[in-house]
């Protein structure tokens, strides 16, 4: 299990790194979708099976297709790509990111998160049948709000992309 953790971690970090450094937006989207597949793998290791499936369906599937469609729709010429080409980062950004990471590691150590290996209990296995009662009983109101949010997002997206309103 630990070996799989490192394999997926390497996959995630490597493809995320490639995603943010590639010049072409299409390669960025494809590398990011590989990172999402790696995250789905970590979900499986945490016994969150439903989330792993949703991650692949929604992220690596729907969201990435949406991104690729928009990239295709914009039809960027070489001139536009050259304008946005290379990452330029102020050293302060790198220092702050390093400090942030250090803070995460120190906080985890002090909270004792490294102490015992993760053993997922039987009632914490995220199968669909186990998640459904929670989602439709205790979290019913957030669930309905989320559905309204998606509806509002759909209407908003259609409105924003319309050429002119009549």
């Amino acid at each position, binding site marked *: 299990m630990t070996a799989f*953790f490192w394999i997926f971690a390497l996959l995630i*970090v490597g493809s*995320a*790194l490639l*995603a*943010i450094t590639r010049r072409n937006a299409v390669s*960025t*989207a494809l590398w*990011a979708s590989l*990172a*999402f597949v790696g995250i789905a793998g*970590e979900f499986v290791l*945490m016994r*969150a099976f*439903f*989330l792993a499936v949703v*991650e692949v369906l*929604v*992220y690596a599937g*729907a*969201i990435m297709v*949406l*991104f690729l469609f*928009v990239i295709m*729709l*914009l039809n*960027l010429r070489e001139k*536009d790509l050259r304008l*946005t080409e290379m*990452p*330029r*980062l102020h050293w302060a*950004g790198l220092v702050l*990111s390093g400090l*942030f*990471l250090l803070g*995460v*590691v120190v906080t*985890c150590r002090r909270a004792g*998160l*490294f102490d015992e*290996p*993760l053993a*997922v209990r039987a*009632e*914490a296995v*995220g199968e669909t049948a*186990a*998640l459904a009662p*929670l*989602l439709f009983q205790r*979290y019913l109101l957030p669930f309905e709000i989320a559905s309204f*949010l*998606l509806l509002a*997002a759909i209407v908003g*997206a*259609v409105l*924003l*992309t319309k*050429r002119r309103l009549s």
Partner: protein
Amino acid sequence: MTAGHLVVLAGVLFTLGMLGVLARRNILVILLSVELMLNAAALAFCAFAARAGNLDGQIMVFFVICVAAAEVAVGLAIVIALFRLRETVNADQVDLLRR
């Protein structure tokens, strides 16, 4: 594999997304880096849920994914509207509010 490993992995992924937002100028890549950061948060939620031994954190990841989907739909619509208006996807050239 401990919960700490997973949280640190989420931290690394979040940092990479943050660097993407800071360093890149292509609006599409910036949006995608925001997605990476949201995924890092989801990973941390799931790690803490596994450690706490209940499913509430996994429900939270479900909502994170839901909000991310809505955010991408609206964000990409804005990118398209912006491209029609200014013919650019460079974040530096969209500076009307700065002048």
